[in-house]
């Protein structure tokens, strides 16, 4: 019998330190915060304490999964999507496998992707699970961009939150995940990057500093995301009316508003939580899915399109069905 995959549970963790727009103005009195909030739509972001790392918050998200409905010994593979690991080597997933007490017979590996990472991770998890007759996989998305952003960076600091999510993917008799549309345009790799963070060193550049060419990334999004959505609809032989809810990467108000305009989507069809959560990079889609379910925007039978896009430049879209 053919095995498919389904999302069985999503848990997430947001660090307790809350950064308000008033806090940002306190640090940067010359910022026109009303204007920034009007365009980003973001009121609060969650920030790790100085000593708190991506692994710390990933663990807390994973423990919530084990508190609910699966045993550690039932996990067959672990995927960690992150661009802010504690170390370049080894992969954070190996450390997590040990600390979480998962079996040593499981595959554990990291995926270096940002805002498209959840969709990529879901595709990899679906492929591994279905081709190996596995029962359970854990997809962890975690990023702590605040570690890379200086306090006076007006482009990035108002946008990004630190967060971790853990998604339990289990075997299913019915197809609930896919198809997928994925893409990469590496010509824009310098438009979103952590400068001076790997083996290339530039003594003139401050180490580990996040850079975003906002205009170029915005235009990339406007160019690529509507096409990815339409390509996926064609692949699935359906149209926007067949989709109950669109969950885009929660980049900012300006981005989501423009995607709604270009795709002619009503407010009711698009879930938004950036206002109070911020842009949580790879965790933004799973957190949005979890909150949409809690808000009853996703019910049994719902058909949901997920679209991630960002650093790479990279994008991915898929459809999931809540059977």
């Amino acid at each position, binding site marked *: 019998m053919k095995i498919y995959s389904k999302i069985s549970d999503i848990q997430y963790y947001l660090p307790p330190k809350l950064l308000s727009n008033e806090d940002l103005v306190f640090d940067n009195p010359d910022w026109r915060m009303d*204007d920034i909030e009007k*365009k980003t739509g973001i009121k609060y972001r969650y920030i790790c304490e100085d000593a708190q790392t991506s692994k710390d918050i990933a663990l807390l998200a994973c423990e919530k999964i084990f508190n609910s409905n699966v045993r550690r010994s039932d996990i067959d593979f672990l995927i960690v999507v992150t661009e802010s690991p504690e170390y370049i080597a080894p992969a954070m997933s190996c450390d997590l496998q040990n600390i979480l007490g998962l079996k040593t017979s499981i595959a554990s590996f990291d995926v270096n992707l940002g805002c498209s990472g959840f969709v990529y991770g879901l595709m990899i998890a679906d492929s591994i699970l279905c081709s190996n007759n596995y029962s359970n996989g854990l997809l962890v998305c975690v990023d702590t961009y605040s570690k890379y952003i200086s306090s006076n960076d007006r482009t990035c600091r108002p946008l990004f939150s630190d967060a971790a999510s853990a998604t339990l993917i289990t075997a299913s008799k019915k197809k609930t995940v896919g198809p997928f549309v994925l893409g990469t345009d590496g010509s824009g790799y310098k438009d979103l990057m952590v400068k001076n963070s790997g083996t290339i060193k530039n003594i003139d550049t401050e180490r580990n500093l996040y850079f975003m*060419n*906002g*205009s170029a990334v*915005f235009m*990339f999004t406007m160019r690529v995301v509507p096409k990815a959505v339409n390509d996926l609809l064609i692949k699935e032989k359906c149209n926007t009316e067949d989709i109950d809810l669109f969950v885009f990467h929660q980049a900012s108000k*300006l981005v989501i*508003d423009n995607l709604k305009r270009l795709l002619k989507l009503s407010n009711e069809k698009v879930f938004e939580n950036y206002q109070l959560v911020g842009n949580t990079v790879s965790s933004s889609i799973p957190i949005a899915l979890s909150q949409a379910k809690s808000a009853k925007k996703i019910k049994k039978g719902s058909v949901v399109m997920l679209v991630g896009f960002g650093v790479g430049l990279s994008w991915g879209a898929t459809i999931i069905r809540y059977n």
Partner: protein
Amino acid sequence: MKSKDDVISTIEIALELEKGSLNIDTRMGSIEQWDSLGHLSILSSLDILFDGLIGPISNISEAQSVEDILNILIENKLIDS
């Protein structure tokens, strides 16, 4: 076809400026409202003005002045020279 005045007027509205505030020589950063976020508002508003035709023009994100924007729109045959 839209005119240069339509474009300048759209930029003024995007930046919440009074009519007549901008001229062809106005550059990004020369006025408080035209910062990196203001630039995104301009790109979004121009895409609305030109019914989604701005998205595919990737180099418009690099425009640094009203003149740059007008020249890119002329190159792409969206306005007359």
